[in-house]
């Protein structure tokens, strides 16, 4: 068993304004990854403002005090870099990987939009990016079969008022109602150095990064009070299974089963991660062996189970299967429920456990094989657990999970009377 999932150096320095600067030197390739985690996500959005954290992420690319509209992308790509940003319920991250000689440019750009976005924010930009985000919603969620599954599962898993109740993409009505002042206030509230972690990984040194961070970010003032998101750590069990049936223009019946488990980063969630791999990763998984191969009621390419790595409330475990031709949604749902229930009654074998751990080990080293993968991981552990070095503990923790722990976790979090089931049926075609 490896004693570390992160065999590279890690340092963390806190600037006077609260910005945490994480550095991991690796001179293997002449590239650096720059990654900023802001501790704000859709869990912070009040009712009526769903989708705002994500729309805001778009606005961060539209210029700031010293960067003209459209210049951000042009400067990073013109330096040979790759860049993007993502928003999820927990947080918003911004990242670019550039040839090492352009590190200073990347830090200047990130500092300018952390400290100087609001003066550059215009109604025209907001209107344009609102249209872009509405198109994103159409493309990803509305115009594809089963595209709205995630939007339907969240409110079944988390009650109204819970920070994970609504999806990050937000509602069309809320997006339409978004006004400029709200976004200016959003930046002033959450985009503060003491609410962010700056991570740099690659062909650089701790001294260089800390000096540059001080130079570009050092004078951005801290914000005294950053309002927390609602506390979602305790979600009372309803004791009643929730089932939603959807008749839609889909090519085959599909079933999702979802449960609330434990927050990402907790020992309980490590067990759930291994459990999910036993249940749904690969052709050797229980779902594949039982439903795709054994009973042959599920399409082999569309079988899976995974945890959604959210850290601020019990995170979801989702299992899904899609029917082979001639198989009804009811039969498929019964088959899926049976395999999930058996995690409690049929002990996981040593071979199943080894297989799951081997697949997780490869997945881990795959993320660690690039400087950008490492930077995002360090930013996560610094933001969510206060110490980037804890990144090294995850892989050993997965490898220490036992079959008994999986059976206990299954009994604890996969109870049928606290299960969410979402079933899609194809429309009857004339």
């Amino acid at each position, binding site marked *: 068993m490896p004693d570390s999932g992160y065999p590279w150096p890690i340092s963390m320095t806190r600037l006077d304004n609260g910005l945490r600067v994480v550095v991991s030197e690796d001179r*293997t*390739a*002449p590239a650096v990854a720059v990654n900023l985690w802001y501790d704000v996500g859709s869990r912070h959005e009040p009712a009526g403002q769903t989708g705002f954290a994500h729309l805001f992420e778009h606005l961060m690319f539209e210029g700031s*005090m010293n960067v003209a509209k*459209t210049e951000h*992308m*042009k*400067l990073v*790509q*013109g330096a*040979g870099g*790759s860049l993007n940003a993502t928003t999820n319920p927990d947080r918003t991250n911004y990242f670019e990987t*550039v*040839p*090492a*000689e*352009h*590190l*200073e*440019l990347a830090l*200047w750009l990130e500092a300018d939009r952390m400290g100087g976005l609001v003066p550059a924010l215009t109604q025209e930009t907001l*209107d*344009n*990016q609102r*249209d*872009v985000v509405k*198109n*994103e919603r*159409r493309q990803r969620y509305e115009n*594809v*079969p089963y595209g709205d599954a995630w939007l339907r599962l969240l409110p079944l898993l988390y009650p109204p008022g819970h920070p994970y109740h609504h999806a990050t993409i937000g509602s069309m009505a809320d997006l339409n109602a978004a006004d400029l002042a709200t976004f200016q206030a959003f930046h002033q509230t959450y985009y503060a150095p003491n609410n962010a972690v700056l991570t740099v990984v690659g*062909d650089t040194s701790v001294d260089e990064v800390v000096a540059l961070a001080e*130079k*570009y970010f050092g004078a*951005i003032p801290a914000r005294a009070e950053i309002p927390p998101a609602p506390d979602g750590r305790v979600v009372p069990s309803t004791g009643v299974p929730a089932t939603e049936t959807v008749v839609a*223009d889909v*090519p*085959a019946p599909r079933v999702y089963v979802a449960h609330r488990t434990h927050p990402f980063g907790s020992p309980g969630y490590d067990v759930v991660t291994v459990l999910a791999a036993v249940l749904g990763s*690969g*052709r*050797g998984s229980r779902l*594949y*062996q039982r439903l795709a*191969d054994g009973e042959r009621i599920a*399409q*082999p*390419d*569309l079988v899976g189970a995974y945890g959604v790595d959210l850290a601020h409330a019990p995170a979801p475990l989702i299992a899904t299967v899609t029917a082979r*031709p001639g198989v009804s949604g009811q039969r498929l749902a019964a088959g899926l429920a049976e395999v999930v229930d058996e995690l409690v009654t049929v002990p996981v074998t040593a*071979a199943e456990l080894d*297989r799951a751990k*081997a*697949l997780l*080990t*490869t997945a881990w*080293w*795959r993320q*660690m*094989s*690039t400087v950008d993968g490492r930077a995002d991981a360090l930013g996560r552990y610094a933001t969510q657990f206060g110490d980037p070095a804890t990144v090294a503990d995850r892989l050993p923790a997965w490898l220490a999970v036992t079959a008994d722990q999986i059976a206990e976790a299954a009994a604890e979090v996969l109870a049928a009377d606290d299960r969410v089931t979402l079933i899609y049926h194809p429309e009857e075609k004339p």
Partner: protein
Amino acid sequence: MTLIADRPGPGAARPYRFPQVVRRTVAGGQVVAAHLPGQNLAVALLLLDAGAGREPVGSEGLGGVLAKALEEGTVERDATAYALAIEALGTELVTGLDWDTFQASVQVPVDRLGAAVELLAEAVRTPKLDPEDVRRVRDDEATALRMDWANPGPRADAVLRADLFGVDNRWGRPMYGTPDSVAALDAEDVTVFHSEWFIRPGALVVAGDLDRIDLDALAAAAFAGTVGGPVDRGAPIEVPLHANRRIILVDRPGSVQSTLRLGHPAPHRAHPDYVPIALAGTVLGGAFTSRLNHLIREVRGYTYGIRGDFASSRRFGRFAVSSGVQTAVTAPALVEAVGEIARTQAGGVTEDELAVARSWRAGQLSVELQSPRAIAGALTTLVVHDLPDDYHARLRESLLAADVAQVSAAAAAHLHPESLTLVVEGDAALIRDDLAATDLGELVDHTP
């Protein structure tokens, strides 16, 4: 003021390095490896001259079905035992197909690479191919394609391809076939295709820490029992341009977006203009800052994204633009996209735009070629297109040296706005009149 207004310039440039390449010939097969010192993960990829271009017309999808059938058991063990054996090493058998090659690969912690390659070879070289299993896999593949074709895009892609290359040619039909072509395949065709193309040695691509990898042992496993040698790859195909631009409308009732697929034929991979063509494509539609994305997304707000590029295989290529736009603005989005293509063809690129495009493409060779998987992909390019070990370093130099005159000339010569086929997949009842009212060209309804 708390922020520093002046944009910093670049520091001292680091020299570009592509990993050291090692080539060997073992047992009639080629080994091409890249040394990644200290890397814990390794990738091995077996490359066979068995791409979709080798499938007979009327048997589209043969390679895809065979790829799945490889995992339905081998002469050594049944499907479940095979899955458990390979997944216990931490990898699945990953298969891939393009016009030129069939690929099967494994990705594992480096100390397990030998065992993983043995299992890879077992599936590729000695699959059981029981006819009953093959028929089931074929039916599953047809179902999987039906699922995929329920999404917007695959139908539009097929319609564009057929119109560009001719539906009577294999390369005028979808790479993975259609739901119907796959459903009609015969189990015996799959076995014959395997015996014809999958027991030739091919090439083994390896990316990992070569100090911890025994290349000769990997090659011995990958090439054991192989027979035959390389087969003529065929010359580049001359594809005529259409005389007139036209719109083909593919109905998708209820669609909240229209899927756009615009294109025309373009040069094959070995064309001498490869670098200026790639840069012209980058300025027009390749990067986020491209002309198309700037106008259609950032200025107009019609889409979440639009991109265009030139793509090429050994025998043919194409220029294509793809996007999903809001239904109500389908016609203006189409008109403006065609306008940008025409403007680029007529007026070429500016130094400002080209500076971004060439630095971006050159920089991507450092930034995107990090993981063993990405390096293996770069090695695959060397093998498929007969390129030298220092190809990526030379490519970088060519990209950085390309000037406005060369790239503008490539845009003028290789963009053909008057010959474009404009495929629109959307709610025909809502968009037909608007499309007919444009002066883009004749409007044709696609009939399945």
